[in-house]
């Protein structure tokens, strides 16, 4: 992405709490996902064999997962709003369209806009613009997964949601709101997994995995 004559500088990109939060989400998310596949008996996953154990892990680790996401959300709005704020959504979508066109060969090459300005001691652009959507999409999916999952497990406390789902269930040919909540929980899980795969691949392509481990990255110096 960067040119041959570009200069690079080592920059502290992610602080420790942010990295811990990120990997906390990744590790708990993977376990929740796997136990979720076990609970739904999806793709033949049957580990752990003890259903009760899988359910307990799935539910209780879900609270830890939600806690990490809350931490991430707070850091996004306090430290990273400049890059991940809603005001950049349109820019993000335009960039995604341009990138897609370029990849398909029907549009011009899109330059990596990320660069660090040593004179001001900050980034001019810290992220690939498409990334703006990512945490918010994750948070939205997490909320949906959380609400549907908790409603399924704590049916007494979430009765109003089940009642609401009851009204919509027949539209989808389902017998009850519980079934509808299950269907949503399951489908959103697949979208979650899709995002995780794309996210992981994008991190590899855009070379940001190291910075999420060590906190630093060689950044292109802005011209």
């Amino acid at each position, binding site marked *: 992405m960067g040119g041959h004559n570009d200069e690079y500088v080592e920059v502290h990109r992610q602080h420790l709490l942010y990295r811990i939060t990120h990997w906390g989400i990744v590790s708990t998310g993977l376990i929740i996902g796997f136990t979720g596949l076990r609970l739904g008996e999806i793709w033949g996953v049957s580990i752990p064999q003890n259903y009760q154990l899988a359910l307990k892990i799935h539910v209780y680790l879900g609270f830890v997962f939600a806690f990490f996401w809350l931490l991430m959300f707070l850091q996004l709005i306090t430290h990273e709003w400049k890059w991940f704020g809603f005001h950049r959504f349109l820019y993000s979508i335009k960039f995604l369209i341009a990138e897609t066109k370029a990849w398909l060969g029907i549009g011009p090459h899109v330059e990596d806009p990320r660069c660090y300005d040593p004179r001001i001691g900050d980034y001019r652009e810290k992220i690939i613009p498409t990334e703006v959507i990512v945490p918010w999409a994750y948070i939205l999916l997490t909320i949906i997964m959380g609400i549907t999952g908790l409603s399924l497990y704590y049916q007494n406390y979430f009765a109003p949601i089940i009642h609401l789902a009851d009204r919509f269930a027949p539209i989808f040919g389902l017998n009850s709101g519980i079934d509808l909540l299950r269907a949503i929980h*399951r489908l959103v899980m697949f979208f979650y*997994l899709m995002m995780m795969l794309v996210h992981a691949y994008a991190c590899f392509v855009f070379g940001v995995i190291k910075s999420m481990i060590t906190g630093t990255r060689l950044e292109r110096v802005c011209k």
Partner: protein
Amino acid sequence: MDKRVLILISVILIGLILPASGSDVQRCGLCHSNIAENYTKSLHYTIMGIRVAWDEGIGAMTHQPLPKICMKCHVENCSTCHIYHGYIPNMTICVDCHRHNVGVNYMGYLIDKMGKGPSPDIHYVYGLNCTTCHKEPEIHGDGHLYTHSFYAVKVRCLDCHGTGKLVRVGNKTIRVKKYDPNLLPHRIHAKVLSCIACHAAWYQTCINCHLDTGKVDKITTKEFHLIQGPDGKLYPAVRMIVTFQGKTYTSVALIAPHTISPKGRPCSDCHNPNTINDVFLVGYKGRLVGPPGIKIVKPGESLKQLVCTADECYARPPNKIVIKIPVLNIWIDTEMLGTLIIGATIVGIFLHYLKRRLTLK
């Protein structure tokens, strides 16, 4: 002796003997005519419930008349419960007679308070006494002659739990927990199970009740059986095992245990291939005691296959969830759709990677 003294003694004696010689129902009925009239038809007065149960069960097998001990249940006098005029009986009065099962079980004890049961009834814990639920027409009768308490007892769980109403208990008011039809066990079982089938936490089974001596070999609270009631729903059933002149006789009776727990029985009490036949009394050919229409039913196949605990069953998802959109005539298997999404993503990533490698070269 003075003639007048003799007359006075005679009057006093007659005054003392007369009330004790027969039922006081007629005397009370002079003012409380409706209650008195109904009462003579009530189960407390006729003890038809016990008579019929005896005649249908053990009595029919042993060819013995109803034992005299059972006749003690016959409440002939108003004053047995209403000790003096205006006295409203408390629970002690009820339990004094109902001390073999429901009365003592309600308080968390076994027969005759000879031992503690697993737990008291939740209603007892909250301070409800017998008359909080069983109102006057049930106790005094409603004018109909019943032969089974199944029909004579009108109170239903949903009378209070259906609305979540406020109930006055002593000097405090309690809001009753409202029945939630959305709770998964309720959704699944409401049409086939009575509330007590699941919420009666335990009941006592007397093993070998010796009719001759009145002694019992053993009492257990571990047994649990279900039979179908006249309304088609399943109810708890108890094995009544008696010994008479060296022989053992067993009958099975539909019961209403007063040992209610807010948390239902664990799913595995029924959904268990190891115990399901015992719960449904598979193979039992003996006498059934209860209202006409009760019967033993065969457990469904699903009960023999599914083994789970309560929490599992509450949250257990089905393997397949198919969404149907009738308007568009589309059927979507969520797992298949998800697999397609993930498959397409992996293919997309692979293609991207491949093109990237080729472009970079």
